[in-house]
């Protein structure tokens, strides 16, 4: 409610303001209007200034700096001498012509799609499950947040030992079931799947939390009314839950995509891009170029490509959202 009042400009004039305005003589009225208007304007600007400053300082500057950096030969020397020769699009050429670019782009896509799909489906199922009332519901739901609370570097170190081929607990368990040991992190054809599985585990709490919140907002009356018309179970989900959840779903998916594209710590902790580059993604490439090879220009070029991809999804989301509002 507050938002509508803030955005609808002249409306907040006091209830008795409108009739008085009509009775006043032209000049004073104009003056008063101007004064009121400008005061309001200043207030408005004051509201915007902190946010604008923040955005310029903490988002604008880094983004611009990153773009500039990607057009320079920015190396360790630059930090001492301050000199970064301008190289135009050379860094982008290096990035795109490198043998690892297309594989890492494909891996980024597979990693993102796989993770989002897994997180979302499991997250939605769990959210729907927790919507029912049963004992220990709250307790279990808060336990579910655990993966989210663990520092990612701790989580990935733990998973690395779980997934170890010989002594890992997962393969030991599979062994008791009579299954062969799976080379989770040491076989190039399995490693990406293993990394995706761990990332799904990390992402489930986020999906459950947001989707559960969305489910809580759907009024029970709708289900009661639907039940009278025979919409129960799967039908209720299809015709009541899903349409009402759509705005939440699009937010979850967009944020999920943006978060997943830039995942770094989990892959670094699990495989460091190996085995044999099987888990290289754009984020890993960017990190390694910048902080392992100290080619900050090339690293910046990689991260700009990543930002562009994220931006693409943000635009798709905004357009989809606007269409919804128009409807």
């Amino acid at each position, binding site marked *: 409610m507050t938002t509508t009042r803030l955005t609808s400009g002249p409306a907040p004039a006091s209830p008795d303001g409108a009739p008085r305005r009509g009775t006043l003589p032209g000049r004073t009225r104009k003056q008063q209007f101007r004064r009121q208007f400008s005061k309001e304007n200043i207030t408005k600007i004051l509201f915007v200034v902190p946010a604008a400053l923040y955005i310029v300082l903490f988002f604008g500057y880094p983004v611009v700096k990153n773009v500039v950096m990607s057009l320079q030969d920015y190396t360790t020397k630059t930090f001492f001498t301050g000199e970064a020769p301008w190289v135009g699009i050379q860094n982008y050429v290096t990035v795109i012509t490198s043998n690892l670019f297309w594989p890492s782009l494909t891996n980024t896509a597979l990693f993102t799609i796989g993770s989002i799909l897994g997180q979302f489906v499991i997250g939605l199922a769990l959210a729907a499950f927790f919507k029912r009332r049963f004992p220990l519901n709250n307790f279990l739901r808060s336990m579910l947040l655990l993966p989210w609370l663990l520092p990612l570097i701790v989580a990935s170190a733990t998973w690395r030992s779980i997934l*170890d*081929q*010989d002594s890992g607990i997962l393969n030991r368990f599979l062994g008791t079931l009579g299954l062969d040991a799976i080379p989770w992190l040491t*076989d190039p054809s399995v490693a990406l799947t293993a990394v995706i599985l761990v990332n799904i585990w990390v992402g489930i709490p986020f999906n459950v939390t947001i989707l559960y919140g969305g489910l809580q907002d759907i009024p029970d009356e709708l289900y009661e009314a639907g039940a009278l018309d025979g919409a129960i179970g799967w039908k209720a989900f299809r015709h009541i839950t899903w349409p009402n959840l759509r705005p939440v779903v699009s937010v979850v998916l967009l944020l999920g995509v943006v978060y997943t594209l830039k995942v770094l710590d989990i892959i670094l902790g699990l495989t460091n891009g190996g085995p044999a*580059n099987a888990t290289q993604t754009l984020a890993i490439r960017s990190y390694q170029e910048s902080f392992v090879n100290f080619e900050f220009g090339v690293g910046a070029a990689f991260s700009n490509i990543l930002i562009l991809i994220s931006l693409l999804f943000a635009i798709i989301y905004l357009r989809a959202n606007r269409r919804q509002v128009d409807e």
Partner: protein
Amino acid sequence: MKKRQLTTLLAIAAITPLALTACSGGGAQTGGDPDTLTILDYYNNEPDKTLIQAALDTCAEELDVTIERETVPGKDLIQKVLQRSSSKTLPDVLMLDNPDLQEIAATGGLAPLSDYDVDTSGFADGILEAATYEDEVYGLAPTVNTLGLFYNETLLAEAGIEPPTTWDELKTAAAALTTGDQYGLAFSAIATYEGSWQFLPFMWTNGGDETDLNTPEVAEALQLWVDLVDSGSASKSVLNWSQADVKDQFVAGNAAMMINGPWQIPGLAETPDVKWGTVQVPVNDESQTPIAPLGGEVWTVPVTGDDEKQAKAASFVECISSDDNQLELATERYTVPTKTELAGEYVEAVPTMEAFTEQVANARSRTGQLGEEWPEAATVIYTAIQLALTGQASVEDAFEQAAAG
């Protein structure tokens, strides 16, 4: 009430960054005191942290200066150095991992030690090579480390096997020691510089060289690793093991032998029931001399602009590498003194370090040939190892394929 709380919160949020900048500003100013030297290193874990502190305190007393020491985690050091160089707040004395020295020296951020008449004679060639950029020595290391072969005495004695000295013996011994859950050998072939570092003793001993990786000598060394993994004498997990993981496998009895360095000895001492010994890394042909890479940290003098202080810092660096300090640090930290004449005295005091001390005498530095280009070669090496061990490329093609990436 609520509104006031919000205002307070906002005020705090607004002030915090100011307070933080004030702190960092203060930190930079203390560098102005002429008798205080600021020091930056990455020995942030015990027992190294305390042991190094003792050496630094000794030198501070000797030179009559006070020191302000900052330790950061190893992986953050270079970032920290770069940050502080761009804000012109470099420490007076800086520790660097030896393969990073040339990269930093190339930026012009370090002062050559010859400017301050620091005596660099008597040091092992390998470590001077690592600390030299364009004919000037930029740093000194009190002690160094390298790689060797650790073996589990109990397991080898039970199987009646002597510690291997050649590749053939290594393969036979590893195969014989592989039973049930226990592998014969563990090493690290991880996709980081650690993997490249572990491969170097095999590559160099066999006559391979990082300036040209597409040679039969290098391929032969890689073939040895492939054979060990393919035959099941070493776990496939070597692809994902760091050297610390390798040590854990060895301690847990999952591996009868391992390639590792003396910095693991304090960790091994925590499990006294695991009896171990060390020999030099096996050679391909008995006529070869084992050549291992040189590890360890060098102390340097960054260019801070204050010439008087830089001179003081140079004396400090010289002091850290004095004979007494070398022996003390070497004994406590299981590292090898860099002055060759101290070797005899040292081995007498710490007999367990005999194999490593011999190994250091012939050790090479990673950056001796390629200098700043070394990181690229190191990336090619670990990528090639991973390609070959996963069967993505033959040992002959692996390096070429890795170099193309």
